């Protein structure tokens, strides 16, 4: 494993009597795109602000390359932040905005000029030096905010929901832009978002958070395919989460029907949560699948149809490119590999997905 660049140790933070983060441990490696993902109020932004130095943890330590920086102010950390609503200096033109940090560090004029030009090129806004922030679109303003941060050559770029205020198309374009930027700069990005698609698209590592606890850390593939608990499964993409009983290794009972699966080591007759992604359910002729049901509704979604199939007293969400008319009987078949078994949550704090 590569060197730990930033390490959080036992970070606890409360506002009033509300605990935002509870004894959080987390580390980040060099040159990674790490995303803190979770619903609002999960503590992801607070985590970022603690890393940036804008909030002090009540207890715990922030380490950078093994050095304790918990009490170092923002300007003493080799990080720069891109804020949610751009936070540009509206009374300065673009050049002055980008040059702000460099001027404070008393860099020579020619150096600043080159750097501003380079940064503008990097975010595809050459020639915008003399424009005022107000005259730019939201997407352009966000690029300027990124340029303003990266001219200072930070080791880590912190991004707090930077695409939140942009419309869908622009957001998708900016996602690719950010991946390109990260690869060109070769620095670590720590990105905060509540948008799971954004997280899956851009990240090397995703940290799923809820109510101040880390739910799962992993690659986008891990998080999507192997959610460790019902919260993660529900938050990332659509899923069917059903109560089940693990009868023995590789055999689970769901709604009274036995299903083959590939999971082992849960013990015998253990209550578990079972996750099946809607696209992993294959609709067949009645009797040809594992269980039979009746299609209740079907909505056209563009790439696929989203259908609800009532079977064994549960409404299964099914995605398929082939439409089965509502009211029709259908069989459902699931590949054992696509049945994901998860332990039931041990504490109250982990089981929150219903509240959303």
């Amino acid at each position, binding site marked *: 494993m590569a060197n730990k660049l930033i390490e959080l140790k036992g970070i606890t933070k409360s506002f009033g009597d509300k605990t935002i983060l509870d004894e959080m441990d987390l580390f980040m490696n060099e040159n990674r795109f790490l995303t803190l993902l979770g619903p609002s109020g999960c503590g992801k932004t607070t985590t970022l602000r603690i890393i*940036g130095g*804008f909030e002090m943890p009540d207890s715990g330590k922030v380490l950078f390359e093994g050095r304790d920086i918990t009490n170092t*102010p*923002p*300007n003493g950390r080799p*990080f*720069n*932040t891109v*804020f*949610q*609503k751009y*936070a*540009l*200096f*509206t*009374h300065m033109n673009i050049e002055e905005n980008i040059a*702000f*940090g460099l001027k*404070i*560090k008393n860099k020579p004029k020619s150096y600043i000029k080159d750097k501003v030009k380079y940064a503008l090129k990097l975010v595809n806004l050459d020639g915008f030096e003399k424009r005022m922030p107000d005259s730019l679109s939201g997407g352009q303003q966000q690029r300027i*905010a990124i340029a*303003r*941060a990266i001219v*200072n050559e930070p080791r880590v770029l912190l991004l707090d929901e930077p695409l939140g205020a942009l419309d869908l198309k622009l957001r998708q374009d900016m996602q690719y832009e950010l991946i390109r930027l990260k690869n060109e700069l070769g620095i670590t990005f720590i990105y905060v978002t509540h948008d799971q698609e954004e997280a899956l698209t851009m990240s090397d590592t995703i940290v799923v958070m809820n109510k101040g606890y880390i739910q799962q850390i992993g690659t986008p593939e891990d998080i999507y395919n192997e959610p460790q608990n019902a919260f993660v499964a529900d938050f990332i993409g659509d899923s069917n989460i059903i109560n089940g009983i693990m009868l023995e290794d590789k055999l689970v009972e769901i709604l009274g029907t036995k299903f083959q699966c590939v999971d082992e080591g849960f013990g015998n007759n253990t209550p578990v949560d079972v996750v099946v992604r809607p696209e992993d359910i294959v609709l067949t002729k009645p009797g040809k699948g594992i269980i039979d049901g009746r299609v209740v509704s079907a909505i056209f979604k563009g790439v696929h149809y989203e259908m609800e199939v009532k079977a064994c007293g549960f409404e299964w969400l099914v995605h398929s490119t082939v439409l089965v008319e509502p009211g029709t009987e259908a069989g459902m078949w699931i590949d054992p590999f696509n049945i994901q078994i998860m332990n039931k949550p041990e504490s109250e704090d982990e089981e929150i997905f219903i509240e959303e």
Partner: protein
Amino acid sequence: MKKLGSMLLAGPYIIWMVLFTIIPLCLILYNAFTNTDGNFTLDNITAITDYVNAKPLFLSLSMSLVVTLTCFLLSFPLALVLSKYSKNKNSIIVMVFILPMWMNFMLRTLAWRLILLNNGFLNKGLGILGFDPVYLMNTKAAVILGTAYDYFPFMLLPIYNALVKIDKDVINAAKDLGATSFVILKRIMLPLSLPGIISGITMVFVPSMSEFVIADMLGGNKVYLIGNVIEQAFNSGYADVHLGSGLSLSLMVLIIISMVIYKLFDKGEGGHGIW
């Protein structure tokens, strides 16, 4: 038709404005350019350059500048502190500073009289503490004090409003880029609150230029401002409505010119001043 209907809503005020603003302004304009015989003359306009009138004018100008500066120096740091409090708390705190405005300003000025009189509260207090009395009554300092006290909220409110509107993350961004508190104040807070500062300066400077009641009450007849000159011209035993109108017009034009010059300096900042 709809337009006419909504115009009608403004009717009562338009009548009010015509009766009490437009017509009086026309009368002043007419009187300023005529003499008692009703003939055209420029004497009333040029009267402002006479020594007897120019001297109070300069006194008014210099005292207004001092008053404005005093209000600004008191308001800006206070507004900075107030803007840091959370929204709920600060509305109460701000109200405390606005509270004096709920009282008639004559009463407030009268209260200052009682404090500043030679045997007033101030000197009684100083006496108890064993200090020599200070004789502030009927001095320029007393008039400046009273005027600054009266107009202070007009400076505080717009600056405060401008400061609370600054996004906290803009300050954080400046910090993140390495700015010290002083740099943040100079490069971020001051420029971004400039529209508020301009409003404040305008709302304090302009009315204190024509101030005369406070000068009467706290300055005795020792502090003679252009406002007093105009008041005398209209009100004294040997009233000259034409001279008074001429001086008023000159003062008005002067204020407008100074505001225009001020605006020119402030180009590019939007200038949301109220005047």
